[in-house]
């Protein structure tokens, strides 16, 4: 049985295949199951322990217990083993033993990527629970799980998951090489791993997607992507990714079609607002107030009339404030979290405007910018985008509106130039037919 299973199933670390031989009775059994999918204690209790104690003829146990049943059709093996059954061969008879164990109740609730109607559990810090959830969500014999140890002292287990048929072998080789090349004493979180694996040290955008959601992971696997699960971390890494994956929330598949499409458009608008709004504020008020229609320009300038310094100082005051607020609300304990928001957002915000230190339009700009930033569904992209406005502000101070445009253009150039593990990071896929071929193929000789 074991030889045959080796052919059917992709070689995977979590597939346990054992041949047990009893020294006295000279009986042998063969045992195969997926470690994360089964309750190992149950297998021990019902199979291995009675077998090693040689309590009674093992075949009578198999026949008397209703949890065991005989499997006649080898074609159903894959199906059974993927459903958490342990397959046992004894004297050329194959039994299936139902040791299935769903670990949904052990999984924590999603913290960062929450949805309204999607699954609420996230993967766990315990890799076995995480792999159980993933294997249950992606029941394919092609799903391969490799294991590596990273960190010379911490020896943290790293599980590399991929669909054997769909994933790109070059990417896989690249990732494996990168993992082998990691030389670090301690690795505690996937964030650390993300930094080590990304190709360049100083890059503006994430090239790996960090997620805690099982549905996102299984969808990524079905698209031929590679997933890294680190022991002791509640987040998995997905690679290679494109920019558009970061704008995409899992909920887009669950909710009504038109609204989710519209939401994606809104996310791009939010992205534009959060990156360029402070820069545009400076550019418009200090260089080209005549861009806006007269009434609007008047009210903008009038709201600034009490402010005694140029617009960019105003922007800096507000930006520093909002960054402090965001940072403090992460650091302080949960109980007094709302207090800091109230103090910072409501009291300080209105007071600073009444004191004439900052114009009321600037308060609107700042809050709009902060809110738009959190519209983006993936946290690592939220963080990356949070940084992007600062270069735009600097260029707006010196070059005005044209500077903002050039800055945004530079970001487009930068994005198009990025590659995530050999995959194009920012491109419009369009309609793609294999007969026609893709650009860049002829030159890649």
């Amino acid at each position, binding site marked *: 049985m074991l030889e045959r299973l080796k052919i059917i199933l992709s070689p995977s670390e979590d597939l346990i295949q054992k041949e047990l031989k009893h020294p006295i009775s000279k009986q042998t059994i063969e045992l195969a199951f997926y470690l994360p999918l089964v309750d190992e204690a149950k297998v021990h209790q019902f199979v291995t322990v009675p077998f090693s104690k040689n309590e009674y003829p093992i075949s009578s146990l198999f026949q008397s217990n209703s949890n065991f049943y005989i499997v006649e059709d080898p074609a159903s093996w894959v199906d059974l083993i993927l459903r958490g059954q342990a397959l046992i061969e004894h004297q050329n008879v194959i039994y299936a033993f139902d040791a299935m164990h769903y670990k949904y109740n052990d999984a924590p609730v999603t913290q960062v990527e929450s949805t309204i109607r999607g699954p609420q559990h996230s993967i766990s810090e315990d890799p076995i629970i995480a792999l159980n959830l993933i294997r249950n969500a992606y029941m394919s014999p092609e799903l391969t799980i490799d294991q590596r140890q990273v960190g010379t002292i911490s020896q943290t287990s790293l599980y590399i998951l991929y669909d054997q048929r769909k994933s790109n072998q070059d990417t896989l080789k690249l990732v494996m090489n990168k993992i082998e090349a990691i030389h670090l004493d301690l690795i505690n979180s996937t964030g650390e791993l993300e930094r080590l694996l990304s190709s360049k040290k100083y890059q503006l955008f994430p090239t790996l997607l960090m997620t805690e959601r099982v549905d996102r992971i299984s969808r990524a696997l079905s698209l031929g992507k590679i997933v890294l699960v680190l022991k002791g971390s509640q987040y998995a890494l997905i690679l290679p990714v494109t920019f558009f994956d970061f704008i995409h929330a899992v909920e887009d598949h669950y909710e009504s079609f038109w609204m989710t499409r519209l939401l994606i458009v809104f996310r791009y608008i939010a992205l534009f607002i959060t990156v360029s709004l402070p820069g545009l504020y400076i550019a418009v008020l200090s260089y080209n107030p005549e861009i806006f229609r007269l009434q609007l320009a008047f009210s903008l300038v009038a709201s600034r009339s009490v402010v005694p310094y140029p617009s960019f100082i105003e922007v800096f005051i507000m930006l520093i404030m909002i960054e402090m607020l965001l940072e403090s609300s992460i650091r302080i304990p949960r109980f007094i979290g709302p207090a800091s928001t109230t103090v910072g957002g409501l009291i300080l915000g209105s007071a600073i405007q009444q004191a004439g230190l900052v114009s009321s339009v600037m308060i609107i700009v700042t809050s709009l910018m902060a809110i738009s930033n959190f519209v983006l569904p993936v946290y690592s992209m939220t963080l990356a985008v949070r940084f992007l406005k600062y270069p735009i502000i600097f260029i707006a101070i010196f070059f005005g509106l044209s500077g903002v445009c050039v800055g945004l253009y530079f970001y487009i150039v930068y994005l198009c130039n990025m590659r995530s593990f050999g995959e194009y990071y920012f491109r419009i896929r369009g309609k793609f037919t294999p007969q026609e071929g893709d650009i860049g193929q002829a*030159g890649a000789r």
Partner: protein
Amino acid sequence: MNRYFFYNYFIVCFTNLMLLIPYFLTADRYGGAVMSIVLSPIFGYIFLYMFTSSLSKFPGKALPEIFSLFYPKWIVNIVMVYKAVLIGIAGALVISTYAVIITSFLNPNANQYVMLMLLLIVCAYAATRSTVSIAFILEISLLLSLPVIAFVMYKTINNPLMNWDAIHVIANHVDHMPTLLSFACASFVFTGYLNMGLFNRILPPNFKFKYIWSYPIIAFIVLVITFFVPIGIHGTETVSQYIFLWSATADSTRMMYGFIERMLFVFLIVLINISLTFTMVGWHMVIEYIRTIIPNNVVNPDEKKAPLRSYIIAGCIIIITFVTMLKVTDDLMLKFTAYFLIFRLFSETLTTTWIFILSRKKVRKYEKEAAS
């Protein structure tokens, strides 16, 4: 993947229309301008067909590779330097014209040279990227600009100030023989296919140019709009008084609703995008052409990291452009642009015919081999 050809074709079309071409054309509005606009798509289509049909005989090969199939290294080098200089000048003209436009319309207080330097640096950085990346940038930036350009054109045509009689008067001057300059200007709009001289490298091996008949038609419509709409807005006489004709035309359009009242600013923001992209594509071609001259060059359209030589060439382009622009006045630039356009007309005719002959030669060679 025909869309990548589309983008390459229309980036040239839109850039030239937005900058100095309408000025030269309207200067000749009582002369041969209308006739050259009518003739140029035919001329443009013939050369488009010749160029694309010959490129499809050399799949995955750019101009340097094609020339080196037939000629010794030194001839190829001379041709490539010549082509690179020509394309480089086009890019430099566009970007420095745009720097002038910014300082006259958007930031009158800013120093023109500081602005130019910013644009040059961004363009040169973008140009050092790999060819595949350039194609993506081109796609994104055109897709972002095209709706806005269409909007600007639509609003300007629907302008209540539009005087159709003026257009009628000018259109009646169709019976004049085209002058050299106006024909060179009009036909320049149709020369976007020359970008494929480099971008042929990234096209897949079994690539077929499709729908090429539609390209000159669309470009012709755009050309007609850009020539006649300013005449309708400004009148037959006043139209020649503006150098940056379309900026002035966009400025005469008012948007009743919305934040921005004057169309000019929308137009300038699109224009920055378009002209940066045009210059980026042009200078990328310069970099790739010059690189083939330097020994030990590795041709890789999807290189991970730009080699040092790319940066050096880009730096040289920046310095040459900047130093030249320090000396050149606006007036001189206009004259130079006119000469450049005429020169380019002849040069492109020559190159396209040359490539066409080479492709027939290759076909004949294979036929001979097959026969023997």
